[in-house]
Protein backbone atom coordinates (compact mmCIF):
# COMPACT_ATOMS: atom_id res chain seq x y z
CA UNK A 1 0.00 0.00 0.00
CA UNK A 2 1.26 3.44 -0.91
CA UNK A 3 0.83 6.85 0.66
CA UNK A 4 -2.70 8.21 0.75
CA UNK A 5 -3.94 11.76 0.42
CA UNK A 6 -6.57 13.16 2.83
CA UNK A 7 -9.11 12.53 0.03
CA UNK A 8 -8.45 8.78 -0.27
CA UNK A 9 -11.78 7.81 1.27
CA UNK A 10 -13.60 10.20 -1.10
CA UNK A 11 -11.93 8.45 -4.05
CA UNK A 12 -13.05 5.04 -2.81
CA UNK A 13 -16.57 6.33 -2.19
CA UNK A 14 -16.72 7.63 -5.78
CA UNK A 15 -15.56 4.25 -7.18
CA UNK A 16 -12.13 5.54 -8.05
CA UNK A 17 -9.84 2.95 -9.61
CA UNK A 18 -6.72 3.29 -7.46
CA UNK A 19 -3.24 2.87 -8.96
CA UNK A 20 0.28 3.47 -7.71
CA UNK A 21 1.52 6.88 -8.79
CA UNK A 22 5.04 7.70 -7.57
CA UNK A 23 4.39 5.84 -4.31
CA UNK A 24 0.91 7.29 -3.82
CA UNK A 25 -2.41 5.46 -4.09
CA UNK A 26 -4.22 7.72 -6.56
CA UNK A 27 -7.40 7.43 -8.67
CA UNK A 28 -6.65 6.87 -12.36
CA UNK A 29 -10.35 7.27 -13.17
CA UNK A 30 -13.77 6.94 -11.53
CA UNK A 31 -15.37 4.89 -14.30
CA UNK A 32 -14.62 6.63 -17.58
CA UNK A 33 -11.51 8.66 -18.33
CA UNK A 34 -13.20 10.02 -21.47
CA UNK A 35 -16.22 11.35 -19.61
CA UNK A 36 -13.99 12.94 -16.98
CA UNK A 37 -11.94 14.58 -19.73
CA UNK A 38 -15.03 15.93 -21.44
CA UNK A 39 -16.59 17.31 -18.27
CA UNK A 40 -13.46 19.41 -17.68
CA UNK A 41 -13.60 20.74 -21.26
CA UNK A 42 -17.33 21.48 -21.08
CA UNK A 43 -18.24 22.19 -17.46
CA UNK A 44 -16.14 21.60 -14.31
CA UNK A 45 -14.08 18.74 -12.94
CA UNK A 46 -11.69 18.42 -10.03
CA UNK A 47 -8.48 16.57 -9.35
CA UNK A 48 -6.87 15.61 -6.08
CA UNK A 49 -3.29 16.79 -6.53
CA UNK A 50 -2.38 16.57 -2.86
CA UNK A 51 0.46 14.21 -3.76
CA UNK A 52 2.37 17.14 -5.24
CA UNK A 53 5.15 18.57 -3.11
CA UNK A 54 4.77 22.08 -1.68
CA UNK A 55 8.01 23.69 -0.54
CA UNK A 56 8.15 27.16 1.05
CA UNK A 57 11.29 29.28 0.85
CA UNK A 58 11.83 31.96 3.47
CA UNK A 59 14.62 34.14 4.72
CA UNK A 60 16.47 37.30 3.68
CA UNK A 61 18.12 35.58 0.70
CA UNK A 62 15.10 33.59 -0.52
CA UNK A 63 14.96 35.63 -3.74
CA UNK A 64 18.71 35.37 -4.41
CA UNK A 65 18.53 31.61 -3.83
CA UNK A 66 15.66 31.14 -6.29
CA UNK A 67 17.43 33.34 -8.83
CA UNK A 68 20.37 30.96 -8.58
CA UNK A 69 18.51 27.64 -8.89
CA UNK A 70 15.77 28.54 -11.37
CA UNK A 71 16.10 29.29 -15.10
CA UNK A 72 13.24 31.78 -15.03
CA UNK A 73 13.67 35.00 -13.07
CA UNK A 74 11.61 35.18 -9.89
CA UNK A 75 12.20 38.95 -9.70
CA UNK A 76 9.58 39.22 -12.49
CA UNK A 77 6.93 38.45 -9.85
CA UNK A 78 5.64 41.93 -9.15
CA UNK A 79 3.11 41.34 -6.37
CA UNK A 80 1.91 38.81 -3.79
CA UNK A 81 0.20 35.82 -5.34
CA UNK A 82 1.80 36.15 -8.77
CA UNK A 83 2.98 32.84 -10.26
CA UNK A 84 5.84 31.82 -12.54
CA UNK A 85 6.52 28.56 -14.41
CA UNK A 86 10.16 27.56 -14.58
CA UNK A 87 12.69 24.78 -14.92
CA UNK A 88 15.21 23.94 -12.20
CA UNK A 89 18.39 22.91 -14.04
CA UNK A 90 21.56 21.01 -13.26
CA UNK A 91 25.02 22.34 -14.20
CA UNK A 92 24.73 20.56 -17.59
CA UNK A 93 21.53 22.46 -18.35
CA UNK A 94 19.32 19.37 -17.94
CA UNK A 95 15.91 19.78 -16.30
CA UNK A 96 15.88 18.47 -12.71
CA UNK A 97 12.21 19.39 -12.48
CA UNK A 98 9.64 21.88 -13.68
CA UNK A 99 7.74 23.84 -11.07
CA UNK A 100 5.55 26.79 -10.25
CA UNK A 101 6.76 29.54 -7.93
CA UNK A 102 4.30 31.85 -6.17
CA UNK A 103 5.34 35.10 -4.56
CA UNK A 104 3.95 35.31 -1.05
CA UNK A 105 4.18 38.06 1.62
CA UNK A 106 7.98 38.36 1.83
CA UNK A 107 8.60 34.70 0.93
CA UNK A 108 8.02 32.20 -1.90
CA UNK A 109 6.07 28.99 -2.34
CA UNK A 110 7.06 26.36 -4.91
CA UNK A 111 5.11 23.32 -6.09
CA UNK A 112 7.28 20.53 -7.47
CA UNK A 113 6.43 17.11 -8.87
CA UNK A 114 5.79 14.18 -6.55
CA UNK A 115 7.82 11.74 -8.67
CA UNK A 116 10.94 13.90 -8.29
CA UNK A 117 10.41 14.92 -4.65
CA UNK A 118 13.50 13.28 -3.18
CA UNK A 119 16.02 14.42 -5.75
CA UNK A 120 14.47 17.92 -5.84
CA UNK A 121 14.73 18.30 -2.07
CA UNK A 122 18.27 16.91 -2.04
CA UNK A 123 19.30 19.40 -4.72
CA UNK A 124 17.46 22.34 -3.19
CA UNK A 125 18.86 21.59 0.27
CA UNK A 126 22.39 21.35 -1.10
CA UNK A 127 22.14 24.65 -2.99
CA UNK A 128 20.55 26.55 -0.11
CA UNK A 129 23.64 26.07 2.09
CA UNK A 130 25.25 29.10 0.45
CA UNK A 131 22.25 31.33 1.23
CA UNK A 132 20.60 32.82 4.28
CA UNK A 133 17.29 31.10 3.53
CA UNK A 134 15.30 28.07 4.62
CA UNK A 135 13.27 25.34 2.92
CA UNK A 136 10.11 24.02 4.54
CA UNK A 137 8.05 21.21 3.06
CA UNK A 138 4.31 21.56 3.69
CA UNK A 139 2.92 18.01 3.75
CA UNK A 140 0.00 19.20 5.91
CA UNK A 141 -1.44 21.05 2.92
CA UNK A 142 -3.71 19.24 0.50
CA UNK A 143 -4.29 20.53 -3.02
CA UNK A 144 -7.31 20.37 -5.31
CA UNK A 145 -7.37 21.52 -8.95
CA UNK A 146 -10.86 22.61 -10.03
CA UNK A 147 -10.81 23.04 -13.79
CA UNK A 148 -13.21 23.83 -16.61
CA UNK A 149 -15.24 26.72 -18.01
CA UNK A 150 -17.58 26.67 -14.98
CA UNK A 151 -14.92 25.81 -12.39
CA UNK A 152 -14.41 29.26 -10.87
CA UNK A 153 -18.16 29.89 -10.64
CA UNK A 154 -18.64 26.62 -8.74
CA UNK A 155 -15.82 27.35 -6.31
CA UNK A 156 -17.36 30.78 -5.65
CA UNK A 157 -20.69 29.07 -4.86
CA UNK A 158 -18.98 26.87 -2.29
CA UNK A 159 -16.69 29.54 -0.81
CA UNK A 160 -19.19 32.39 -0.75
CA UNK A 161 -17.16 34.46 1.73
CA UNK A 162 -14.25 34.58 -0.69
CA UNK A 163 -16.33 34.79 -3.87
CA UNK A 164 -15.38 38.37 -4.72
CA UNK A 165 -11.69 37.80 -4.12
CA UNK A 166 -11.71 34.64 -6.22
CA UNK A 167 -13.61 36.42 -8.97
CA UNK A 168 -10.95 39.13 -9.15
CA UNK A 169 -8.04 36.72 -9.67
CA UNK A 170 -6.25 37.14 -12.98
CA UNK A 171 -4.70 34.26 -14.91
CA UNK A 172 -1.52 32.93 -13.22
CA UNK A 173 -2.30 34.85 -10.07
CA UNK A 174 -2.88 33.51 -6.58
CA UNK A 175 -4.31 34.71 -3.30
CA UNK A 176 -3.64 33.58 0.27
CA UNK A 177 -6.65 33.59 2.59
CA UNK A 178 -5.54 32.36 6.01
CA UNK A 179 -4.05 28.91 5.48
CA UNK A 180 -5.89 28.55 2.17
CA UNK A 181 -4.30 29.59 -1.11
CA UNK A 182 -6.29 30.05 -4.32
CA UNK A 183 -4.38 30.23 -7.62
CA UNK A 184 -5.82 30.70 -11.09
CA UNK A 185 -3.50 28.10 -12.57
CA UNK A 186 -3.88 24.58 -13.90
CA UNK A 187 -2.69 21.74 -16.06
CA UNK A 188 -5.63 21.29 -18.41
CA UNK A 189 -5.77 24.22 -20.84
CA UNK A 190 -9.04 25.35 -19.24
CA UNK A 191 -9.76 28.16 -16.84
CA UNK A 192 -9.84 27.11 -13.23
CA UNK A 193 -8.15 27.15 -9.86
CA UNK A 194 -5.55 25.19 -7.98
CA UNK A 195 -6.32 25.47 -4.28
CA UNK A 196 -4.08 24.57 -1.36
CA UNK A 197 -6.03 23.66 1.74
CA UNK A 198 -5.18 22.40 5.25
CA UNK A 199 -5.54 18.62 5.09
CA UNK A 200 -8.17 18.57 7.84
CA UNK A 201 -10.50 20.83 5.82
CA UNK A 202 -10.14 19.35 2.32
CA UNK A 203 -12.68 16.51 2.54
CA UNK A 204 -15.49 18.91 3.46
CA UNK A 205 -14.52 21.21 0.57
CA UNK A 206 -14.39 18.29 -1.90
CA UNK A 207 -17.81 17.06 -0.80
CA UNK A 208 -19.27 20.55 -1.14
CA UNK A 209 -17.89 20.79 -4.67
CA UNK A 210 -19.43 17.41 -5.56
CA UNK A 211 -22.77 18.77 -4.32
CA UNK A 212 -22.24 21.88 -6.46
CA UNK A 213 -21.91 19.64 -9.51
CA UNK A 214 -18.15 19.39 -9.91
CA UNK A 215 -17.17 15.91 -11.16
CA UNK A 216 -14.13 14.12 -9.69
CA UNK A 217 -11.60 13.39 -12.45
CA UNK A 218 -8.65 11.03 -12.28
CA UNK A 219 -5.03 11.14 -13.30
CA UNK A 220 -5.91 9.55 -16.65
CA UNK A 221 -8.00 12.55 -17.68
CA UNK A 222 -5.37 14.86 -16.22
CA UNK A 223 -2.86 13.37 -18.67
CA UNK A 224 -5.05 13.63 -21.79
CA UNK A 225 -6.06 17.18 -20.84
CA UNK A 226 -2.48 18.38 -20.29
CA UNK A 227 -1.33 16.76 -23.53
CA UNK A 228 -4.13 18.45 -25.50
CA UNK A 229 -3.03 21.68 -23.82
CA UNK A 230 0.56 21.10 -24.99
CA UNK A 231 1.91 21.02 -21.44
CA UNK A 232 5.00 18.94 -20.66
CA UNK A 233 5.03 16.01 -18.26
CA UNK A 234 8.27 15.66 -16.33
CA UNK A 235 9.92 12.28 -16.95
CA UNK A 236 8.18 11.89 -20.32
CA UNK A 237 8.82 15.10 -22.21
CA UNK A 238 11.96 16.23 -20.41
CA UNK A 239 14.38 14.96 -17.77
CA UNK A 240 17.84 15.54 -16.31
CA UNK A 241 19.51 14.89 -19.68
CA UNK A 242 17.34 17.30 -21.71
CA UNK A 243 17.73 21.07 -21.72
CA UNK A 244 14.73 23.41 -21.75
CA UNK A 245 15.74 24.37 -25.31
CA UNK A 246 15.06 20.76 -26.35
CA UNK A 247 11.79 20.56 -24.44
CA UNK A 248 9.74 23.47 -25.74
CA UNK A 249 10.65 25.42 -22.59
CA UNK A 250 12.85 28.09 -24.19
CA UNK A 251 10.29 30.72 -23.14
CA UNK A 252 10.90 29.87 -19.48
CA UNK A 253 14.59 30.81 -19.63
CA UNK A 254 15.21 34.39 -18.50
CA UNK A 255 18.43 35.36 -20.32
CA UNK A 256 18.17 38.91 -19.03
CA UNK A 257 19.73 40.28 -16.91
CA UNK A 258 22.86 38.77 -18.46
CA UNK A 259 24.74 38.83 -15.15
CA UNK A 260 22.23 36.53 -13.38
CA UNK A 261 24.34 33.41 -13.10
CA UNK A 262 21.65 30.73 -12.65
CA UNK A 263 22.70 27.08 -12.51
CA UNK A 264 22.76 25.66 -16.04
CA UNK A 265 23.18 29.02 -17.75
CA UNK A 266 26.67 28.34 -19.10
CA UNK A 267 25.63 24.96 -20.48
CA UNK A 268 22.57 26.48 -22.16
CA UNK A 269 24.66 29.24 -23.71
CA UNK A 270 27.13 26.62 -25.00
CA UNK A 271 24.31 24.50 -26.39
CA UNK A 272 22.82 27.52 -28.14
CA UNK A 273 26.18 28.46 -29.64
CA UNK A 274 26.88 24.91 -30.83
CA UNK A 275 23.37 24.39 -32.16
CA UNK A 276 20.51 22.77 -30.27
CA UNK A 277 20.40 19.13 -31.47
CA UNK A 278 16.71 18.39 -31.02
CA UNK A 279 13.37 19.96 -30.30
CA UNK A 280 10.01 19.01 -28.84
CA UNK A 281 7.15 19.17 -31.36
CA UNK A 282 3.45 18.44 -31.48
CA UNK A 283 2.27 15.68 -33.82
CA UNK A 284 -1.23 14.89 -35.02
CA UNK A 285 -2.32 11.63 -36.61
CA UNK A 286 -5.65 12.24 -38.27
CA UNK A 287 -6.13 8.63 -39.36
CA UNK A 288 -6.72 5.60 -37.13
CA UNK A 289 -4.33 4.46 -34.44
CA UNK A 290 -2.94 5.97 -31.27
CA UNK A 291 0.61 7.25 -30.88
CA UNK A 292 2.31 6.11 -27.65
CA UNK A 293 5.45 7.20 -25.84
CA UNK A 294 8.72 5.63 -27.06
CA UNK A 295 7.46 4.99 -30.60
CA UNK A 296 10.07 5.88 -33.18
CA UNK A 297 9.61 9.01 -35.32
CA UNK A 298 11.23 8.88 -38.76
CA UNK A 299 11.88 12.19 -40.52
CA UNK A 300 12.77 11.54 -44.13
CA UNK A 301 16.19 12.83 -45.14
CA UNK A 302 16.87 14.19 -41.64
CA UNK A 303 16.91 11.48 -39.01
CA UNK A 304 14.94 9.90 -36.23
CA UNK A 305 13.24 10.94 -33.03
CA UNK A 306 10.95 9.51 -30.39
CA UNK A 307 7.41 10.08 -29.17
CA UNK A 308 7.68 11.38 -25.58
CA UNK A 309 3.92 11.45 -24.81
CA UNK A 310 1.14 10.12 -26.99
CA UNK A 311 -2.55 9.56 -26.54
CA UNK A 312 -5.99 9.64 -28.09
CA UNK A 313 -7.38 13.17 -27.89
CA UNK A 314 -10.97 12.96 -26.68
CA UNK A 315 -11.65 16.54 -27.83
CA UNK A 316 -10.24 16.08 -31.34
CA UNK A 317 -11.17 12.39 -31.72
CA UNK A 318 -7.79 11.41 -33.11
CA UNK A 319 -4.32 10.79 -31.76
CA UNK A 320 -1.95 13.56 -30.65
CA UNK A 321 1.60 13.35 -29.36
CA UNK A 322 4.69 15.22 -28.32
CA UNK A 323 7.95 13.98 -29.79
CA UNK A 324 11.60 14.91 -29.63
CA UNK A 325 12.93 15.13 -33.19
CA UNK A 326 16.05 16.43 -34.94
CA UNK A 327 16.17 20.23 -34.81
CA UNK A 328 15.79 20.66 -38.59
CA UNK A 329 12.59 18.64 -38.81
CA UNK A 330 9.91 20.39 -40.88
CA UNK A 331 6.18 19.70 -40.94
CA UNK A 332 6.08 16.02 -41.85
CA UNK A 333 7.18 12.80 -40.22
CA UNK A 334 6.33 9.11 -39.95
CA UNK A 335 5.52 7.27 -36.76
CA UNK A 336 6.54 3.63 -36.43
CA UNK A 337 3.46 1.93 -35.04
CA UNK A 338 3.17 -1.81 -34.72
CA UNK A 339 5.84 -2.39 -37.37
CA UNK A 340 4.47 0.08 -39.94
CA UNK A 341 5.45 3.65 -40.77
CA UNK A 342 2.38 5.89 -40.58
CA UNK A 343 2.56 9.45 -41.98
CA UNK A 344 1.73 12.20 -39.46
CA UNK A 345 1.79 16.01 -39.31
CA UNK A 346 3.86 18.26 -37.12
CA UNK A 347 1.88 21.20 -35.76
CA UNK A 348 2.34 24.10 -33.39
CA UNK A 349 1.07 23.36 -29.89
CA UNK A 350 -1.21 23.63 -27.99
CA UNK A 351 -3.63 21.25 -29.67
CA UNK A 352 -6.64 22.44 -27.63
CA UNK A 353 -7.22 25.54 -25.54
CA UNK A 354 -10.45 26.50 -23.78
CA UNK A 355 -12.33 23.60 -25.33
CA UNK A 356 -11.38 24.35 -28.94
CA UNK A 357 -8.91 23.06 -31.51
CA UNK A 358 -6.02 25.52 -31.85
CA UNK A 359 -3.58 24.23 -34.48
CA UNK A 360 -4.10 24.42 -38.26
Amino acid at each position, binding site marked *: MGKQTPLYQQHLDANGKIVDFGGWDMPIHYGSQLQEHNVVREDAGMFDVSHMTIVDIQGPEALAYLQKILANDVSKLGFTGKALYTGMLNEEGGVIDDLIVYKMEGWYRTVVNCGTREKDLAWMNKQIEAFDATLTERPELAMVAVQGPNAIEKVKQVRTEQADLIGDLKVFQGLPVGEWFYARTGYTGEDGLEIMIPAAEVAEFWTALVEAGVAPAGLGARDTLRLEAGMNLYGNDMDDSISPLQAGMGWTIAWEPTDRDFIGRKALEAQKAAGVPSKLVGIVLETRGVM*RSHQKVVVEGIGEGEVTSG*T*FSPTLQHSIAMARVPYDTGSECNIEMRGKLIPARIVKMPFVRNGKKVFE
Partner: protein
Amino acid sequence: MSNIPAELKYVESHEWLRKEADGTITVGITDFAQAALGDVVFIELPEVGAEVEADDDIAVVESVKAASDVYAPIAGKIVAVNEDLVDAPEKANEDPYGDAWFFRMEPADADVLDTLMSAEDYAAKCE
Protein backbone atom coordinates in the same frame (compact mmCIF):
# COMPACT_ATOMS: atom_id res chain seq x y z
CA MET B 1 -16.73 -7.71 -10.12
CA SER B 2 -16.70 -8.80 -13.76
CA ASN B 3 -19.76 -10.07 -15.54
CA ILE B 4 -19.01 -13.61 -16.83
CA PRO B 5 -22.08 -15.14 -18.53
CA ALA B 6 -22.45 -18.85 -17.68
CA GLU B 7 -23.48 -19.92 -21.20
CA LEU B 8 -20.25 -18.75 -22.92
CA LYS B 9 -16.81 -20.32 -23.30
CA TYR B 10 -13.56 -18.47 -22.59
CA VAL B 11 -9.84 -18.45 -23.39
CA GLU B 12 -6.95 -17.15 -21.31
CA SER B 13 -6.43 -14.13 -23.56
CA HIS B 14 -9.82 -12.82 -22.34
CA GLU B 15 -11.97 -13.57 -25.37
CA TRP B 16 -15.41 -15.17 -25.08
CA LEU B 17 -16.91 -17.62 -27.60
CA ARG B 18 -20.51 -18.53 -28.36
CA LYS B 19 -21.72 -21.30 -30.68
CA GLU B 20 -24.45 -20.14 -33.07
CA ALA B 21 -27.24 -22.31 -34.50
CA ASP B 22 -25.46 -22.52 -37.88
CA GLY B 23 -22.31 -23.95 -36.30
CA THR B 24 -20.26 -20.72 -36.53
CA ILE B 25 -18.64 -19.29 -33.43
CA THR B 26 -18.99 -15.67 -32.36
CA VAL B 27 -16.01 -14.09 -30.58
CA GLY B 28 -15.63 -10.95 -28.50
CA ILE B 29 -13.62 -9.62 -25.54
CA THR B 30 -14.80 -10.13 -21.97
CA ASP B 31 -16.10 -7.62 -19.48
CA PHE B 32 -12.89 -8.16 -17.50
CA ALA B 33 -10.84 -7.28 -20.60
CA GLN B 34 -12.77 -4.12 -21.42
CA ALA B 35 -12.55 -2.90 -17.82
CA ALA B 36 -8.80 -3.49 -17.79
CA LEU B 37 -8.35 -1.65 -21.10
CA GLY B 38 -10.39 1.41 -20.15
CA ASP B 39 -12.20 3.53 -22.73
CA VAL B 40 -11.83 1.90 -26.15
CA VAL B 41 -11.24 4.37 -28.99
CA PHE B 42 -10.25 2.33 -32.07
CA ILE B 43 -10.82 -1.26 -33.16
CA GLU B 44 -9.21 -3.06 -36.09
CA LEU B 45 -10.83 -6.28 -37.24
CA PRO B 46 -9.53 -9.17 -39.35
CA GLU B 47 -10.37 -9.71 -43.04
CA VAL B 48 -13.40 -11.82 -43.80
CA GLY B 49 -12.19 -15.04 -45.41
CA ALA B 50 -8.88 -15.15 -43.54
CA GLU B 51 -7.75 -18.59 -42.39
CA VAL B 52 -6.24 -18.29 -38.93
CA GLU B 53 -4.53 -20.48 -36.36
CA ALA B 54 -5.29 -20.37 -32.65
CA ASP B 55 -3.29 -17.60 -30.90
CA ASP B 56 -2.65 -15.62 -34.12
CA ASP B 57 -3.00 -11.89 -33.41
CA ILE B 58 -5.79 -10.90 -35.78
CA ALA B 59 -7.42 -7.78 -34.31
CA VAL B 60 -6.36 -4.72 -32.31
CA VAL B 61 -8.13 -2.80 -29.57
CA GLU B 62 -6.78 0.65 -28.80
CA SER B 63 -7.94 2.24 -25.59
CA VAL B 64 -7.01 5.62 -24.19
CA LYS B 65 -4.45 3.70 -22.15
CA ALA B 66 -2.84 1.17 -24.51
CA ALA B 67 -3.01 -0.91 -27.68
CA SER B 68 -3.81 -4.59 -27.21
CA ASP B 69 -3.88 -7.49 -29.60
CA VAL B 70 -6.90 -9.70 -29.90
CA TYR B 71 -6.01 -13.32 -30.63
CA ALA B 72 -7.84 -15.98 -32.63
CA PRO B 73 -9.11 -18.17 -29.78
CA ILE B 74 -9.37 -21.21 -32.09
CA ALA B 75 -8.23 -22.26 -35.58
CA GLY B 76 -10.62 -21.70 -38.45
CA LYS B 77 -11.89 -19.21 -40.99
CA ILE B 78 -13.22 -15.68 -40.36
CA VAL B 79 -16.71 -15.61 -41.87
CA ALA B 80 -18.00 -12.26 -40.57
CA VAL B 81 -16.75 -9.16 -38.75
CA ASN B 82 -18.71 -6.52 -36.81
CA GLU B 83 -18.26 -3.41 -38.95
CA ASP B 84 -20.58 -1.41 -36.66
CA LEU B 85 -18.05 -1.81 -33.89
CA VAL B 86 -15.39 -0.03 -35.95
CA ASP B 87 -17.63 3.06 -36.05
CA ALA B 88 -18.68 2.80 -32.40
CA PRO B 89 -15.72 1.35 -30.49
CA GLU B 90 -17.18 2.53 -27.15
CA LYS B 91 -19.63 -0.39 -27.45
CA ALA B 92 -16.75 -2.64 -26.40
CA ASN B 93 -17.02 -0.97 -22.98
CA GLU B 94 -20.80 -0.73 -22.89
CA ASP B 95 -21.96 -4.12 -24.17
CA PRO B 96 -19.03 -6.54 -24.45
CA TYR B 97 -21.21 -9.67 -24.76
CA GLY B 98 -23.85 -8.17 -27.07
CA ASP B 99 -23.44 -5.41 -29.65
CA ALA B 100 -19.66 -5.52 -29.30
CA TRP B 101 -19.00 -8.98 -30.78
CA PHE B 102 -15.80 -8.80 -32.85
CA PHE B 103 -15.94 -11.57 -35.48
CA ARG B 104 -17.51 -14.92 -36.37
CA MET B 105 -15.46 -18.00 -37.22
CA GLU B 106 -16.08 -21.31 -38.93
CA PRO B 107 -14.08 -23.59 -36.62
CA ALA B 108 -11.57 -26.06 -38.06
CA ASP B 109 -12.73 -28.48 -35.37
CA ALA B 110 -16.48 -28.46 -34.78
CA ASP B 111 -16.09 -29.73 -31.20
CA VAL B 112 -13.39 -27.26 -30.20
CA LEU B 113 -15.58 -25.47 -27.64
CA ASP B 114 -15.61 -28.55 -25.44
CA THR B 115 -11.87 -28.06 -24.86
CA LEU B 116 -12.15 -24.41 -23.69
CA MET B 117 -12.74 -22.84 -20.29
CA SER B 118 -16.18 -22.68 -18.71
CA ALA B 119 -17.43 -19.50 -17.04
CA GLU B 120 -16.49 -20.97 -13.69
CA ASP B 121 -12.91 -21.73 -14.81
CA TYR B 122 -12.56 -18.28 -16.33
CA ALA B 123 -13.89 -16.56 -13.21
CA ALA B 124 -11.16 -18.31 -11.22
CA LYS B 125 -8.57 -16.93 -13.68
CA CYS B 126 -9.83 -13.39 -13.23
CA GLU B 127 -9.53 -13.34 -9.46
